[in-house]
């Protein structure tokens, strides 16, 4: 009797799907997500695509609309090759941080997989995109699609007017600086150009009013001292030092036409849009995996998913969160799905069934009782680095048997620095958190000086952390790209971040064209 009742409440049976079943499954999953996990999501738009279209989406950085560029063709060839050789399967889904949230589902998926993917992407990722502080601050989910539409159209018009080669040259150079094209620490100055001009005019007026001819008669020695004092002022007027190279070039390059500036801006906006995603891999995937795992189990407990389907779901789930050990031939780094899910389940455990150790380490959440609230808070406020620094527990470090290896280039050996013991927990947690700090793992390169009235020599500075230098060949090639956008000599000085000692300097005048 009971069995029959449960059979009738199944969301689906068999592996085939149709739109009615998809819709019913989504409604059930969404209801339970809101009710049990208190998720808050954008409206969802589900698109069914073929494997070919999934490859297309891969190669245009996952966006449904993208301007044309040869490098996307190259990536397409690469992905296509991997896929054809069976070296890499395609993702079951792709989700875009937009409003409405676009979720791509592969047509080959079985219905069980579609349900899993719906819970994972349409609810998990979707909730994260809508509620995480980083995404809220830096991306505008409602505007991204129309912006990409504009970008694509704009670049097509530029190609018509200025020729493919000219547009491609600007895009090549801008792409080379994409990683240096984001604001990491501050938001861009928000002055509109009109207000900017007004401010400049007011300042000139003030200078005219307060002009005093006496200054001219000052003895020359003091004027020289004045000249020296001009340097900081010059830097201040250009907002130097500037970490966002693309922004600096867009605003200050003297050789760019307006359309070229706009193209740089487009590349910069897209880079900035993706910046939060790069900082929240573990959290984003962890959140989505936690949500699908929890929701699928809840549906199964309620008798809405059959045992067969649940087995298939669990099999796929365990493939996704598989984490081989470091000496396993399959090891290729830490799996963000696995780490994220484990940490979130760990938070759940700490909130409900804390040990004495947990009470010691996490006094504010241990035994809190309401794990939903704790998780919702963590999802909203953190990025990978701070999340790990805050929530990686000793229990999890032991479970994963983490250890830290120090690797100095000039030593023939790596040295094990810490392991999962009482003394190592803090260090491992800090090291793991640091390894997810995007800003720290990318070379820190800033514009430090340029004399616009003099020789216009653009000076960049690379702050060398831990003695990690830049790769020579790609550095020279990238400098050439900067020179193309800047139009005058560009030099890059490597300076040790701690001691301030200059290590070496490379200028475009030393690099053959």
């Amino acid at each position: 009797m009971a069995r029959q009742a449960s059979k009738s409440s199944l969301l689906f049976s068999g592996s085939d799907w149709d739109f009615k079943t998809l819709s019913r499954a989504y409604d059930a999953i969404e209801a339970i997500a809101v009710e049990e996990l208190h998720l808050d999501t954008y409206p969802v738009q589900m698109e069914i695509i073929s494997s070919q279209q999934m490859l297309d989406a891969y190669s245009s950085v996952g966006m449904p609309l993208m301007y044309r560029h040869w490098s996307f063709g190259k990536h397409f060839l690469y992905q296509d090759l991997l896929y054809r050789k069976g070296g890499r399967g395609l993702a079951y889904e792709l989700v875009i941080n937009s409003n409405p949230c676009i979720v791509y589902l592969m047509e080959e998926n079985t219905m069980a997989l579609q349900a899993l993917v719906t819970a994972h992407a349409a609810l998990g990722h979707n909730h994260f995109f809508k509620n995480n502080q980083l995404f809220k601050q830096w991306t505008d989910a409602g505007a991204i699609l129309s912006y990409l539409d504009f970008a694509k159209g704009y670049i097509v018009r530029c190609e018509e007017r200025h020729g493919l080669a000219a547009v491609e040259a600007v895009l090549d150079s801008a792409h080379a600086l994409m990683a240096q094209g984001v604001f990491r620490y501050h938001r861009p100055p928000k002055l509109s150009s009109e207000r900017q001009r007004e401010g400049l005019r007011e300042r000139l007026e003030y200078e005219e009013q307060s002009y005093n001819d006496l200054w001219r008669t000052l003895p020359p020695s003091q004027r020289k001292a004045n000249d020296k004092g001009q340097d900081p002022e010059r830097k201040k007027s250009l907002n130097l030092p500037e970490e966002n190279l693309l922004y600096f070039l867009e605003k200050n390059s003297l050789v760019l036409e307006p359309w070229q500036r706009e193209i740089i801006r487009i590349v910069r906006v897209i880079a900035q849009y993706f910046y939060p995603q790069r900082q929240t891999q573990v959290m984003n995937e962890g959140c989505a995996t936690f949500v699908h795992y929890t929701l699928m189990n809840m549906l199964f407990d309620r008798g809405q998913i059959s045992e067969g389907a649940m087995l298939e779901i669990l099999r796929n789930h365990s493939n996704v969160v598989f984490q081989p050990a470091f000496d396993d031939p399959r090891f290729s780094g830490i799996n963000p799905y696995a780490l994220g899910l484990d940490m979130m389940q760990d938070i759940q455990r700490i909130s409900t069934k804390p040990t004495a150790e947990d009470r010691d380490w996490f006094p504010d959440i241990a035994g809190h009782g309401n794990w939903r609230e704790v998780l919702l808070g963590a999802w909203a406020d953190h990025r990978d680095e701070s999340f790990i620094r805050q929530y990686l527990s000793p229990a999890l470090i032991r479970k994963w048997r983490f250890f830290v290896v120090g690797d100095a280039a000039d030593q023939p050996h790596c040295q094990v620095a810490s392991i999962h013991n009482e003394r190592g927990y803090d260090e491992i947690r800090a090291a793991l958190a640091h390894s997810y700090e995007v800003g720290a793992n990318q070379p820190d390169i800033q514009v430090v000086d340029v004399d616009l009235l003099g020789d216009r020599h653009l000076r960049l500075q690379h702050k060398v952390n831990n003695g990690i230098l830049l790769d020579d060949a790609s550095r020279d090639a990238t400098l050439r790209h900067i020179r193309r956008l800047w139009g005058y000599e560009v030099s890059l000085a490597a300076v040790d971040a701690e001691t301030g000692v200059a290590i070496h300097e490379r200028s475009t005048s030393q690099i053959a064209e």
Partner: protein
Amino acid sequence: MPIFIDRRLNPKDKSLGNRQRFLKRAREELKRSIRDQIRTGRIADVDAEHAVPMPETGTAEPSFNNAWNSGRRQHILPGNRHFSPGDLIPKPGGGAGASSPGNTASEDDFRFVLSREEVLDLFFEDLELPDMVKLNLKEILAYKPRRAGFAATGSPTNINVGRTMRNSHGRRIALRRPKQEELDAILREIATFEEVPSSAAAHQRVAALREELDRLERRRRRIAYVDPVDIRFNRFDPRPVPNANAVMFCLMDVSGSMGEREKDLAKRFFVLLHLFLKRRYDRIEIVFIRHTHLAQEVDEETFFYNTQSGGTVVSTALEEMHRIIDERYPVHEWNIYAAQASDGDNFAGDSERCIALLNGKLMRLCQYFAYVEIIDEREAHIFGATENGTSLWRAYSEVDQRWPNFQMSRIATPADIYPVFRQLFGRQPAPLKRA
């Protein structure tokens, strides 16, 4: 309830444009690697997909990257079984750390597949049949619109304003449409009468004028300024675009003196020629003639795959070719090309006959005649530089000197085929002058 969109039926190959841009960018390098592959491989392989390595120049995407072999790093790894703090682990390969990113193969080291069309396009780029000058209209494929007078019907975009207004003007004069000036004059007159104090005569006059005004206005309304009958449209006539007809004669010696190796080389040459013509020219006819001491026209299949043997009389092939031209390909309509392959052996005295045939008729009919001689690899050293050679080679040298549209070359190894082919069919800076 989410929105569902089924995208599976959307146009495919969204990234085709990007792929084409990429191929264009890497064109030179891809061309070189395909030619190298084909030179060393089998000629028939041209007609297939090819995997090529990622070109190195022009397709790098540089950015500022950390050098993996400098500085101090920390790796955080899972799955510790037996390490304690302070343990030393030797670095694999003496350099990189346990999981240095520099060790993994970069995304740029991969081979990718070019489709058959892309291979052929790259392979046959800058090759063409020289001197394709005779155009005719026998088989029309393309039309081009051309202005041809005016029509009373057409689409609004084609309205001819000048014509239309001229018709309208004539019609207005013929039908005596009242002009604006006439109406204005009457109105002015009425106004002058109304200013002065009225008399009976004036009243009458004003009434008459008003009636006249009314009549004119009604007439103006009846006779339109521009009537549909006035409108004229530019007319366009589709005009056929002349089309080049070309025929290629492939002449191959299959006599007993041609060994397996020679036949193989000759066939490879013709396979290449065949692929090239099929790829680059939509409308081209190919005539296959093979000869021993007798020549016969055969189909493609027989030409490439059948075996036959016998003596050698080269002139029979030339005669057969001449007969076919006379029969089927009028010289004033067809661009005629010929490629001949032979080992250079000929029946005694027949070479003179060949010269006579070529000088007498054939070279006048042909746009271009290419002769390829298959020689022994050992002979290649001897004959390589000199004009000395087989009887046919010596004979053809005479023809070569007399006719600029005659070319000859020697092939000793499979690797020679492609360079010779390029030499014979490379795009010429200016069309050949016919002697």
